[in-house]
């Protein structure tokens, strides 16, 4: 009988701890959402590098919520503990607590795997490391050749601040509104960095919205670009950019970080790492570590970031009305950023007497290099011999710096 009882107890224990008993309907909905994201990542190749691990983290945490569980302390009655563990009282290393005259051991329990990996997001470590890799891959030449592109990179950040206004009036707190607005920067690591500091509870929906809109750049931007420009403006050919010397490229990251870190210390982690990566690339003397930053380090951090951000999207957190509001506000932020970039492009077109094609303005929303490719594609639809790609790369990389600066502004003015 003892064997049968033991067997039944074991089976009951397994069933009770299984997902079939412990999971709610929200978890199953999120599993379905993760399948949709798998489809988008694998079949449609929408930002697959981040969307695939993100969807997997979402799947994993909704099937096994304890994988994201935080460590805790369990109070175990001393006499019970000694009964089940074959040890002498003196050799037990746990601290003790006395409650109602009984002695309890404070036995620590460890957290889930993803909880520990998530600390890199929570402490704001992964996004700057991703920026290190981005810096090591980015050529700021087009921006140095035409520094006026910075204006377009700044203009495209206006969507962030206008959306803040909308979010406040939809009932979000200041910190949450700042995190939602940053989706308009179309820069995933920046959005995660700001949200992890201002509103960590919204990390899941904001990351999913930010990366989804980045993936949808070729669908969202062209109608706005076409609506705000004339056929003649879209066909404008821009003169070839001047060549940029190696010395200029080496000085650039140093100048940028000195200025940004002095004026806006909150933006220093992101911009600092971006510029460090770029200096490693442009200096040409540390090829080995520049390649590591571009490849191995970036890939490792992308895996950790994707999986753990996905793991914040548990059913109870994600399936709320607020998520729908965030997705809607994120789209508005993104559209406003694109529109502001194009409108400033038009202004520059007028001021330069038709030398600037306004289509390059939309690339100011970051989303490197997809937004620049979209400018190129829309421009080429009007004039097949027009090549705007390198001209659009200027505002595009300026947008990366611009969104990091905007993130610094939000972090410094919003109490958190």
């Amino acid at each position, binding site marked *: 009988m003892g064997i049968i009882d033991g067997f039944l107890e074991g089976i009951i224990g397994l069933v009770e701890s299984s997902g079939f008993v412990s999971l709610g309907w929200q978890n199953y909905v999120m599993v379905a959402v993760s399948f949709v994201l798998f489809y988008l990542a694998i079949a449609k190749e929408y930002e697959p590098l981040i969307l695939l691990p993100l969807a997997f983290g979402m799947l994993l945490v909704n099937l096994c919520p304890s994988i994201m569980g935080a460590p805790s302390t369990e109070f175990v009655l001393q006499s019970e503990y000694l009964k089940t563990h074959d040890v002498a009282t003196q050799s037990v290393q746990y601290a003790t607590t006395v409650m109602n005259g009984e002695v309890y051991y404070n036995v620590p329990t460890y957290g889930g795997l993803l909880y520990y990996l998530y600390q890199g997001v929570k402490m704001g470590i992964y996004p700057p490391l991703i920026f290190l890799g981005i810096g090591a891959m980015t050529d700021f030449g087009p921006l140095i050749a035409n520094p006026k592109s910075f*204006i377009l990179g*700044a203009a495209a950040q206006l969507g*962030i601040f206008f959306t803040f206004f909308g979010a406040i*009036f939809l009932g979000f707190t200041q910190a949450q509104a700042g995190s939602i607005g940053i989706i308009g920067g179309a820069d995933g690591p920046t959005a995660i960095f700001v949200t992890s500091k201002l509103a960590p509870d919204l990390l899941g929906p904001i990351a999913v919205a930010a990366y989804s809109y980045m993936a949808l750049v070729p669908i969202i931007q062209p109608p706005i670009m076409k609506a705000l420009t004339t056929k003649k403006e879209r066909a404008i050919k821009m003169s*070839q950019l001047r060549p940029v010397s190696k010395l200029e490229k080496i000085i650039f990251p140093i*100048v940028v970080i000195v200025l940004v870190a002095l*004026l806006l210390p909150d933006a220093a982690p992101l911009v600092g790492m971006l510029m460090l990566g770029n200096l490693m690339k442009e200096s040409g003397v540390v090829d080995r570590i520049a390649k590591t930053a571009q490849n191995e380090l970036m890939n490792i951090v992308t895996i950790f970031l994707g999986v753990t951000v996905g793991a914040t999207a548990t059913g109870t957190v994600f399936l709320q009305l607020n998520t729908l509001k965030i997705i809607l506000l994120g789209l508005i932020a993104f559209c406003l950023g694109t529109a502001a970039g194009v409108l400033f492009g038009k202004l520059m077109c007028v001021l330069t007497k038709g030398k600037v094609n306004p289509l390059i303005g939309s690339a100011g929303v970051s989303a490197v290099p997809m937004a620049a490719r979209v400018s190129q*594609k829309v421009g080429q639809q009007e004039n097949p011999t027009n090549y705007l790609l390198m001209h659009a790369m200027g505002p595009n990389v300026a947008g990366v710096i611009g969104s990091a600066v905007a993130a610094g502004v*939000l972090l410094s003015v919003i109490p958190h």
Partner: protein
Amino acid sequence: MDLKTIMAAGLSVSEKFNISFTVILTGFVVVFTVLILLILIIAAYGKIVSSAQNKSKAKKEAKAAAEKAAKATEKSAPAPAPVQKVAPSNGLTDEIVAVIAAAVDSTYGVGNAKIKSIKKSPSSGRPAWGQVGVIDNTRPF
């Protein structure tokens, strides 16, 4: 917007306006100021670096020209007159026609195409090979 939603965050409407406009104004001013300062600094150092590099380049070129002139005066024998090729009025030499014919044959198969005339297409301001490179690199978009 109903009052219930507005009050959800515990702020009155005027407080919400105040906060929003403070963030919008600060955001606009700081982002534009930082990026405009960067424009000015980069434009300034760009000019300084390129003018310094042009000066050193001009010096090197002057030195090289002086050395070349000195060498030329050392040589007493006159150099043989270069063979001049007279280009036809339409700018197409026989060699170019042959290369184009070979390219056409290679594309359509020998004897499958006939060249009736060769006209230069309007230039886009880029050398032909540069144009091919750009088309190649931007084809996927």
